[in-house]
Each structure stands twice: as C-alpha cells, then as structure tokens.
C-alpha cells in the first residue's frame, strides 16, 4: 500500500549554467535602464498610436503588417494600465506621466534578451560544441543593433524571437524524430514550430520568409521519410499528416485567430473607417452605423440615396453634383457640353443625395407599398438639391478624352437631347431578380443609349471643378473594376413632394432601423485584402536605405536626439560582427562549392558526418540569411536598415559554425590550433570593445562630447548628429 514510502522521493534537476548565465546577461543587457529615454523614440511614434487605439478599442487598419505584433505591444500597455491618452505625433516628444514606458518596452526587451539563450540552444541542437554555441550567444549579446531594436517599443526583436523559436523547436523535433516519433515531446516541439511560425508571420509579414524556409526544410526531410522503405505506407502517411497539421493547419488557424481577436477587441469606429466598405463600417459601433442604423434595406422608386464608389481609391468618395457647369472650353481647347458638373466628392455633403426615379412616372416620393428596384430595372437618377437628371452623351470627359462626359442635364434647347436612362446591374446578385439593397448591393449603372458605365476615373479636376474627382462614362467596359461599382450608403424613403420640403428633408439626418452583421470570415477577408493592397504614398525617408547598403552597414538611423544634452540613440551595428559575418558567409559558400564539386568527382575531403552537419547548419543559416535578405531587392517600399536584422541574426549564427569547421577540419596539427584559439580570444575581445565603444549610441547615455562623437564616425556615410556651436 504505502510502498512508495519505501523509496525516497528524488527530484533530479539538471541546470545548464551556461544557459542561465546567458539568459541573465541577456536580461541585464537588454533591460538595463529600460525606461530611459522617457521620450518617443523613432517608430514608437508609429506603433504607439496603434497601442492607444487598442486601449480605446477603436478600429484601425495598418498596412505594415498583421495585427499580432501590435496586439502584443498593446498587451504591455494593458498590463501597465495605459489608458491610451497620449498624442503620438512627434519623435522626441516627452512621455506624459500616464504612459507606462517600462511596461510598453518590456515585451520587446524580454524577447530580445531570450534570443541570446535561443541562439545557444540552436547551435547545440545542430550538434555543434558548447563552445561554439556559447560564442554564437555572445555575438548576439554584444550586437549593438539588436540591443537598440529590442530596448524600444518596436517589433523586430519580437519577430526575431519567434523566428529563432521556430527554428529551435523544429531542430528539437527533428532530433527526436530519429529516436522517438509520436511521443509527447515530439508532438510538443512539432506543434511549437507551427505556433512560432504563425506568431512570426503574425508579427510581420517578413516572418513568411522564414516560414517558407522551414517548410522547405521540412519538405526535404519528409521526402527522405518517404524514401525510407523500412517504414510502412501507413506510418509514412501518419508522419506526413502530422506535419501537415502542425505546420500548415495550425499556423493558418492561429493566423485567423489573431484577426478574430483583433476584430473582437476593436469594435468602435475610428479614423480608418472610410477605407472599408460601407457594410464593414456598419458593423462597427458609432460612425456609419449610427447613421445607417434603421435605414430601409430595399431601395425603391422614390428612395433618396447617397452613392459611394466601391473602390475607395485614391480617396473614398460619393457621387456628387453642384450648381456649377463644365467650362465651355477646357485649357487644352477641347469643348464641353457646358452642363452641370458631376463629380465624386470625398466628404459627406447634402449635394451627395440622389433620388431614384421611375422613368414612367413623375413622382419623386415612395409609393405605398414601396416598389423595390431590381436587377436590370431602368431608372433615372435625380440630383436632390438641383433636381437635374444624371445624364451622359457623346462628349469627351474633361480629363479622360476617350470616355464620355457625365453631367446633370440642362436643356439649352439645342440639338442635344437628354439621355438619362440608366440600367441598374447588381454585380453581387444571387439571382437575376435580386432587389437593390442598401450597403450590401454593389451596383453598376449602364447607360441605356450608349452602354457607357458610370465610373470613377481617379483623376482630380482642375480649379473649375474644385479639385473634386472626375466621373466618366466608360464606353468600352473592360471587365469588372471596382471603380465602376457603387453602393448605396445612406438611404431613406422620400416623402416630400415639393422641392422646398425635400431640401429640408435632405438636410435632416436619416432615421430608422436595421442592423447588418457581417460574418467573421467576410470581415477577415476584407480587412486582409485592404492590408495587402493599401498603398501609402511611399516617399523616401531621410534614413531610408537600399539593401546594398546593409551588408556593409553603410547607413545608420538616428533614432532619438536629446535637444539639450545632445544624447542620442542610433541604430548602428557592431561593425566587427557584421564584417565577420560577411566573411563567414563568403568562406562558407566557397568551401561548400569546393566540397560539392569534389564530392561529385568522388573525392571526399571531410567525413560523411561532418559533411552532413556542414550542409544542414549552413543550409539553415545561409538559407535563413538569403530568404530574409534577397527578397528586399524586389520590393518597392521604403526600406530601412532594421529590415536587415533578421537576416543578420542568421548570418551571426553562421560565424561559429564556420569557425568550428575550420578548427576541426582544416587545422590538422596542434600549433595552428593554438594559434587559432589565441586569435579567437583576441577577436572576441575586440568585438566586446567595439560594443563598449558604441554603447553610448545604443543606450543613449552617457552623453558624448562633439569630439567623441566625431571619433565614432568610422564611416563617412554614417549620419551622427554633431551640433555646431
């Protein structure tokens, strides 16, 4: 019964003091004086506004990446009790007392610190010596650029952490694969790989590169598994399914869940509403929902509506008209119809109201019961304030001479009859008898006489058109483009027969009651699409750089500058580490090619085991560097030095790999080995020295004098701020 008492209870703990020491050093190194400076540093101004919006639960769209990273930063703010009240408008602005700087910066700093033991562990799992692993960790520890980036409210260190975690867990999993597949540990590491990958992708889309690399490596390993004929077909299938589940299904589910949380947390309307479709806006609290709440759903003859262009580019706008006419002659001498202008106007205005009229009847009010407009019906659109009819004819549009001009018809009693019949085509209809619905239906207006389609050209009119956007009739409708689609945003049933009453009615706010709930997937798809396609006007930034500058670190970024003391923080790397990493990459590639060609001729310079190790470690490190670096050459967005940091991390991991290979296989006798070790010691000390030298620029203190700053300008292209007195 009490047999267990006969045996002593033994708890054996194995603690790798190396790991502990590295973690502690990392924490000290990254967390030291974390809340200094108490001022907005560089991109904190950018991420900070999102943290504030999270705190206030206000919806936003950020085209720089998926929401997980922002959410993590906001979580820090939540823990610190941040209320979101801070105006993020200027780099260098002092934080007010309510901003918990320390906890906002804590998470990036923690993840940055944990990268140090992760690097150690990765090399150990790659079967390198503890000495090499320790070296790798130290290099990460003393890398100034990584330190700067992790000590601020920025996302790169979080990204690097998840990337390294994914790599490490895959290696752990792969090492377990040989001895004990399908055990708890095996599952744990496999699933952790998938989770870490999705977190990396969720923080920044850059994580996708590493995810692809891991998938490729996993694919290669699975291929070997398929070729392993000792396994039965069923067990091979199980292996493949497990990998598919953990590396594809789990990440996708996680990714969706980030958006789910994002959309659940942010339920209030906010500054970016206008980018989204009316249906999406209506699902947010406040904003459009407040206006559209209780609108009638079905558009009927006599409805008063505002029409919003579905594309929303260059700015979201509504179909608009006003008293002014097109000039008789344009600047370039072409003539116009001189009829009333029709434009697209990016602000809410009483002139955006149009009335749907049945061509066969005179009345402008909704009959009882309302007669809904269906797909294929022919309508006239009457401008509410001026009661003129939307019209198009064979006159060239002001800025797009190949298309027809759209006007509100004025009868000048010349031989130019009104052509104001439009066919309503609901593009997203389910059946051909669908009713035109408020907000939900995307409608194309096809002109009956000329089959021109009402379209937003994207050009803005000159002074005479008040710089509003041009509306044209596209004669050759080339396929479907969102610029030809319109949806009803505000809507009410018109009641007033007389023009005067109607004007009063148009000015009054709409009232009534319906609610539109979009499903999560619909909202996710729309938000994801907007994130991917939203294009900010990308102009060159003062500190932007080209990928070629990164390898040699020809550029730096001034993050922060104290206006009085002159203390400053720069993103500037440990130049010695960068140089060594480049050399290591070069040596690796040359040696690899040399071995490869000679092995093809059946000459083996190194034993099979060493070769396999060399290939796997190098494939991971050089591959990681390449996938995180080369794609930038094809990107057209504004690039900064910090985009290189993930690639750099992989490159740093390569240094000890190459060094150990050199000592093991190329230094055959004792003497060169000793010399090599001595060199190593000297090299590590100089790396530490460089780190110390540049640490004032990394931590922002102590303040340096102008002469000291000048002496730190090791490269002419570095932009170190030296004040002139």
């Amino acid at each position: 019964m009490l047999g267990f008492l006969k045996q002593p209870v033994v708890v054996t703990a194995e603690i790798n003091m190396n790991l502990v020491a590295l973690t502690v050093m990392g924490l000290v190194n990254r967390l030291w004086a974390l809340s200094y400076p108490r001022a907005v540093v560089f991109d904190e101004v950018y991420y900070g506004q999102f943290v504030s919006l999270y705190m206030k639960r206000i919806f936003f769209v950020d085209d720089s990446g998926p929401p997980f990273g922002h959410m993590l930063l906001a979580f820090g703010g939540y823990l610190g009790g941040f209320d979101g009240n801070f105006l993020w408008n200027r780099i260098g602005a002092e934080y007010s007392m309510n901003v918990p700087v320390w906890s906002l910066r804590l998470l990036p700093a923690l993840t940055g610190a944990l990268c140090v033991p992760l690097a150690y562990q990765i090399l150990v799992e790659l079967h390198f010596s503890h000495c090499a692993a320790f070296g790798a960790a130290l290099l990460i520890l003393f890398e100034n650029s990584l330190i700067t980036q992790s000590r601020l409210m920025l996302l790169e260190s979080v990204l690097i952490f998840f990337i390294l975690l994914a790599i490490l867990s895959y290696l752990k999993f792969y090492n377990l694969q040989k001895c004990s597949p399908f055990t708890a540990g095996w599952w744990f590491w496999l699933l952790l790989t998938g989770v870490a990958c999705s977190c990396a992708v969720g923080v920044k889309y850059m994580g996708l590169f590493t995810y692809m690399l891991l998938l490729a490596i996993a694919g290669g390993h699975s291929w070997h598994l398929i070729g392993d004929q000792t396994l039965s077909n069923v067990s091979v299938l199980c292996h493949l399914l497990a990998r598919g589940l953990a590396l594809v299904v789990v990440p996708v589910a996680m990714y969706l869940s980030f958006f789910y949380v994002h959309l659940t947390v942010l339920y209030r309307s906010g500054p970016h509403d206008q980018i989204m479709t009316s249906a999406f806006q209506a699902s947010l609290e406040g904003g459009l929902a407040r206006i559209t709440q209780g609108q009638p759903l079905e558009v009927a003859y006599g409805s008063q509506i505002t029409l919003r262009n579905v594309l929303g580019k260059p700015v979201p706008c509504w179909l608009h008209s006003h008293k002014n006419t097109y000039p008789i002659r344009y600047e370039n001498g072409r003539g116009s119809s001189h009829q009333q202008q029709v434009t697209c106007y990016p602000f809410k205005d009483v002139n955006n109201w149009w009335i749907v009229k049945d061509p066969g009847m005179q009345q402008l009010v909704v009959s009882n019961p309302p007669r809904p407009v269906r797909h294929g019906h022919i309508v006239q659109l009457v401008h509410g304030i001026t009661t003129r009819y939307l019209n198009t004819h064979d006159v060239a549009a002001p800025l797009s001479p190949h298309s027809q001009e759209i006007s509100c018809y004025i009868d000048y009693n010349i031989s130019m009859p009104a052509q104001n019949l439009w066919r309503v085509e609901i593009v997203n209809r389910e059946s051909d008898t669908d009713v035109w619905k408020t907000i939900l239906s995307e409608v194309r207006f096809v002109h009956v006489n000329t089959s021109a389609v009402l379209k937003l050209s994207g050009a803005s009119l000159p002074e005479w058109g008040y710089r509003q956007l041009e509306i044209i009739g596209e004669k050759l409708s080339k396929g479907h483009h969102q610029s030809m689609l319109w949806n009803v945003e505000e809507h009410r049933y018109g009641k007033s027969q007389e023009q005067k009453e109607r004007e009063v009615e148009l000015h009054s706010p709409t009232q009534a009651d319906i609610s539109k709930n979009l499903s999560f997937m619909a909202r996710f798809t729309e938000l994801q699409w907007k994130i991917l396609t939203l294009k900010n006007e990308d102009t060159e930034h003062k500190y932007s750089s080209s990928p070629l500058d990164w390898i040699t670190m020809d550029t730096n970024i001034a993050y922060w500058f104290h206006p009085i003391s002159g203390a400053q923080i720069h993103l500037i790397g440990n130049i010695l580490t960068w140089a060594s990493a480049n050399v290591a990459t070069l040596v690796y590639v040359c040696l690899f090619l040399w071995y490869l060609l000679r092995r093809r001729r059946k000459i083996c310079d190194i034993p099979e085991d060493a070769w396999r190790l060399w290939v796997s470690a190098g494939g991971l490190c050089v591959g990681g560097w390449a996938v995180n670096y080369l794609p930038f050459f094809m990107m057209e967005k504004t690039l900064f030095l910090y985009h290189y940091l993930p690639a750099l991390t992989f490159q740093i991991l390569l240094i000890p790999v190459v060094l150990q290979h050199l000592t093991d296989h190329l230094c055959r006798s004792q003497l060169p080995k000793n010399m090599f070790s001595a060199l190593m010691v000297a090299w590590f000390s100089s790396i530490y020295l460089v780190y110390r030298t540049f640490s004032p620029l990394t931590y922002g203190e102590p303040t340096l004098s102008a002469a000291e700053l000048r002496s730190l300008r090791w490269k002419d292209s570095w932009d170190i701020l030296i004040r002139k007195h």
Partner: protein
Amino acid sequence: TLRRVRSVAFPTCLSLHPATSRGDALAPGAENYNSHDALRGNQTPLPAMPYGADSLSLDAVRGGARLPSGPRCGGLRQRRPRRPAGEPSRPSPPPRAWAPLEAPVGVWAPLASITLLSFASRFYRLCEPPHVCWDETHFGKMGSYYINRTFFFDVHPPLGKMLIGLAGYLSGYNGTFPFQKPGDRYGHHNYIGMRGFCAFLGSCLVPFAYLIVLELSKSLSAALLAASILIFDTGCITLSQYILLDPILMFFLMGAVLSMVKYNSCAVRPFSAPWWFWLSLTGVNLAGAIGVKFVGLFVVLLVGLNTVYDLWELLGDLSLSLVTLGKHLLARVFCLILLPLVLYTAQFAVHFAVLNKSGPGDGFFSSAFQSRLIGNNLHNVSVPEHLAYGSVITMKNLRMAGGYLHSHWHLYPEGVGARQQQVTAYLHKDLNNLWVIKKHDSNTDHLDPSCSVEFVRHGDVIRLEHKETSRNLHSHQHEAPMTRKHFQVTGYGINGTGDANDFWRIEVVGRKSGKRIKVLRSQIRLTHLATGCILGSSGKTLPKWGWEQVEVTCTPYVKETPNALWNVEDHINPKLPNISLDVLKPSFPEILLESHMVMIRGNSGLKPKENEVTSKPWHWPINYQGLRFSGVNETDYRVYLLGNPVVWWLNLVTIGLYLLMATCTIVAIKRGAQLTVEFKELSEVLLHSGGKIMLGWLLHYLPFFMMGRVLYFHHYFPAMLFSSMLTGITWDTLLKFCAGCLSCSMGKRVYTYGMLALMLLIVYSFYLFHPLSYGMVGPMASDPNSPMAGLRWLESWEF
C-alpha cells in the same frame, strides 16, 4: 544509292541496341525509322550485350555507312552517365498496346502535313483587315524608321523591328506610311510583305513544337497533339498575322528550345559536327530571342539551367577526365555565352549604323550620342564655343538618359516643399528648356549691343534665368519632393529679381580657376552658394503634378557622380561667332551601354495608372479576357485576340494533371515500387522531358507576377507554347499508362480513340471560334443573329 546502303546498315546497328523506345523513335530521318519499324515487326528478343561493345560497333557502323555531316544524331540517345559501362543493355520489352499506331506512320509525312496546315491557317486572309491593327501602329512605324534610317527610341532591343523593316524593304514597302493610329487604312502601301514575314515565322512554331515533342517523348501522337493544338489555337493564329514582335520572339524562342533538345540528344557523341551545329544554333537563337524583347531572358534562363544540369551530370561521370570536362565547359561558354553576346552586340552595331538620321528619339540620349545623327542640331554643330553672359543655353544632365534642365508655369503642389515654380529634367526638346546666363549681381541685358562680350569663367558666381517664365533657378533648405535627403530646386523671383538663394557657382570638372567654359565639352557642376549643395537630377519620376518628368534636386552630399554634372548643349549668342565644333564622338561600347540604360528606364516607366483596368497574370491561363485587335462597332471588321477556349482550358487542366501524375510517379519510385520496363520509360518521359517543358512554362509565366509594368494578355503566349507541348506529352503518357493497364487490344483501342477524341475536340472548337481570328462582321455576340451567338462563354469576352 546512299539511301539504300543506310537502310541496310541501320538494322545492324539497331539490332545491337534493341528497341527501347528512346533509342529508336528519336531518329529524325524517315529511313531510320522505317528500317527500325521493319525490325519491330519481328520483335525478336536479342541476347544481352555489354554496353562497350555496342557503342563500339555502332561507331563502326556509322563510320562504315558514312553519314553525311549535318544535323542528325538520332539513333542512339542513351547518355553515358545514366548507364554505367558494363551494365548489360535491356532486353526487348513485350509488345505494346500503342506501338501499332505509330508503326505505319513515318515522321516526315506528318511533319509536312502539319507544316502545310500551319502555313495555310496563318496565311489565310492575311491581308484582312487592310488597316492598322493594334500595336502595328508601333512596330510598323518602327519598321518604317529603319527604311527611312531615322533614329527612334523604343523599350525593346532592335532585332525584331530591324527584321520587320528588312521584310518591308525587300517586299517593296517604301517606308512612307505614317502608321499613326490603329484603324488607318493602308491604301496603296504594301504591308503584306511585313505581315507575311511575321506570319511565316509564326507558322514555323508548329513544326518546331512538333519536333521538340517528338524528340522529347519519342511519340508521334504526342507530337501531333501538341502541333494540332497550336495550329488550331485562334490566339496563336491572330498573333501571327500582324506586324508584331511576338511571332518573331516566339520563333527564336522555340528555335532555341528545339536546338537545345537536339544537342542534348547528341550527348552520346560530343564534339561531333551535329553536336557543334545544334549547340551553336542554340546560341544563335538565344541571341535572336533576347534581341527581340527582353522577355527572351527567360529562355536564356531555361537553357542555362539545362546546361548547368548537363554539366553536373558530366562532372559526376568519373570516366571523363578533367581535360574533357574543361573542353565541355569551354564549348558551352563559347557557344551559349560568348556567341550570343557577340551576335547581340552585332545587332546593335547594325542598328546604330542603319539609323543615322535624327528622329523622334534624340532627346533621350546624351549630347555626344546625338551628334552622330544627321539632321540633329548637334551634328556638325556650329555654335559659339565659349559661354558668355547673356547666352541662351540648354543644359543636359550627364547621367544616362538624363534630361534637360526644365521649368514651366506650374507650381509645386501644396505640401511639397515651398509653393514655388517647378524645376524638372525633361527628356524632350522644348522651348522651356532654355535658360539665360546672367551675372549674379546685375540685371543688365548683356545682349544689348553697347555691352562688350564677357565670358563666363570657371568659378564665377552666376544666376540662371528661365527664358520663358523669367524666374531664377533657386534652391533652399526644403525637402525635395521625392529624394527627401536633398533640397528642393525651384524657379523663383519675378522678371529676374530674386534673392541670394538664386546664386550658383559654376565650375568645370578638372579645371583651374579663370578658364572659359566650353559648350558641349565642359562638364559643369553648379554649386549653390548659400547651402553648398550641388544641382543634380535624381532620376526619379515625379508624380502626376510634375507631368511625370524627372526630379531635379540640390544634393548636400558632395559626390562626383554624373547625376550632378551637366553639359551645355544648345548655345545661342548672336554676338559671338559660330565655330564648327567636332564633338567628341562616343565609342561603340559607350553607345551600347547608354542605349541599354535608356531602354531599362523606359521599361520601368511603363507603370499602370491608378484606376486603369489592366490585365493581370492570373487572367491569362484561364483565357479570362482578350485584346481587341481591330474594330469596335457592329459594322466594323472585328478581330479579337483570344485563345481557343477549349484548347486553353485543356492546357490549364493538363497542368494540374501533369503535377498530379508527376507527384504520383515520383512518390511511387521513391517508395521503391517495382515498375515494368514499359512504365519506367513512360515515367522517364513524364518526369524528364515533361519536367523540362514544365520548367519552361514556369519560367515564362511566374516572373510576370513580380513585374510592376503594364502587362497585356499577349505576354502569356510564350508560356502558352510550352503549356501546349506539355499537353501533348502528358495526355500521350496518360493514355499510354491507361492502355498499359488494360489488355492489349482493349488498351490499343483506348489509346487510339482517346487521341482521336482529343484531336476532334480541338478541330471542332476551332471551327466554332475561327471567326475570332479571321474576322467578324455583323452584330455582336450578344445578338442571337451573330455568328458568334452563344459562344460568349465568359462575360468578360468582348466580341
């Protein structure tokens, strides 16, 4: 006769190497084929024989038969590395279900008939419509430029247009038709020569595809299927019938693939005459492909990858010495790198030699370049030699494809620096490029006859006044519009009265102070006096408000780059005598480099505009939308570039099918499944030959997803050629697989009927859709009376 002798000799050789389908069907000579078929009739299993002996005796036989030198190397295609010496050759396979289909048919007869069909389909109604269609307006015009020897600028390399020009010249077209816009009637001008030339090259694609597929799959029916797809594709027909670059590009592209495949087949006899012939022909075709359009780079990549793989195999063959390997490497470097480079350069040499008259493209090039052109104001120029105050000048930026310093009556928009007059760099010659040199501190009119001439000297402080608007060239510490690190440059002041920010120091590179400044030859640097920055052109294109001209900035980083250097091009000063200047003529490499820079800039400038409906790469394989070549209204003669939908959707399905089949096969092999000899051969064809074609398709399709420029539907056609060949190979293999699984007679029937059904389907769909290419008149397809009624299967098709 020789023919007889060989047909006697060959059975001997082939009997040593029993009928593996790879070994025999390759022979492009009908005699070999027939002789072998005769052998096949017997199907006698032959004793195994060591490889060494068999190759030796084969050589002996070849020597004895005295093969004529020429592109011939079928017979034996076994590459050595794949079959190590000493391994016995395979025993003859059992009779096959599909063999009888191929047996009685030769190779040349089908080739001749498909060639005939191909020519017939391309030349039918070639002269219709007798007006300019679509891009004929560009390429016809450029052909005319060659005939008139007028210099022009285009984003594509010159070979295609040169050939069009040559065809026009030979067929009696005199280059006088203006090709102004699509729809212009040709009238009495002879355009058939140029269209006929393009149609001729377009017709050659079919036999090329036939030969490639035959060579790769050894299956006549696969080759016929691929050929008939191309013959009966309305898209290929339409694209071949007009004066366009695409037929020329595709001709060279397929030529390159064909010769690559052929020289791979010659691998058993390296350094033989046919081997050299095909290898160098590959190089020639590569030069042709890349000389027509830069898209030709993709086929260079394909050939490159194939060559790397080839060399890798050779490297693994330990029986080859390093010296032999070196020879192999050098041969490829010579034929596939050096030869194309030389030919490519030669095209440009001809281009520059032919176009020696000034024309519309002058402004894109540097002053030195322009001086070569007869009729340009810089040709045998005579201007005042030294700059003087009061001179009216134009300044040209020295960077490649740099523009003239330009200003106009438009201000920088709000939010972009100070709201002052724009200063840009402009590539065309224009009155707004004129500037007047003035002294910085006085506003006297130097052209007043009472003043004496005063020359501008190195190191002087000057003011540059824009002639049309009388504003001074000005800079200040505002950010430049695009390059935020630089300062903005504006036009400032009224009637020449500005402020101290209008002062610039003029310096000549490599000159001491006090020397005069020469027109054209001096490289000038303008330093802003107040901020110390240097006037330069960043090369970035301004947005719409700047009329998409090039940005001009003042750079605070003092670097010696051509961006910041200028030369004076035009120089007007009535008080100075004109002197004839012999401008330094640029050397050929300089011209070559410059024209490439200009082309690359032009290409990257073709960006789609906001809200413009453009064709997306994913539209293409599904035949989502075509291109209107001619005609809009009901009464017009309408031609619409659209692939035959049945063919294209078959191609699309086949790509999926191929991936599925390839995956299954490769996994089965990896799992160690025991395949019969027959299936092994099939999978070899599927993976190896199909893989090559698949790679070609990928290389010609995927890169378009990453291109920022405007894309059109017709960009897909090179990829479509590969896709069609893949269809031929895949269906043939699939049917053979099916047939192999069934009993002999049943399998034979499945195979025959399957192939027949596919071909009939293609022919019938062509019958339905042929008006797309050969012209539609009358009501649109939406009208039930139209010949195309009911055929508008997708709403996005516009016919």
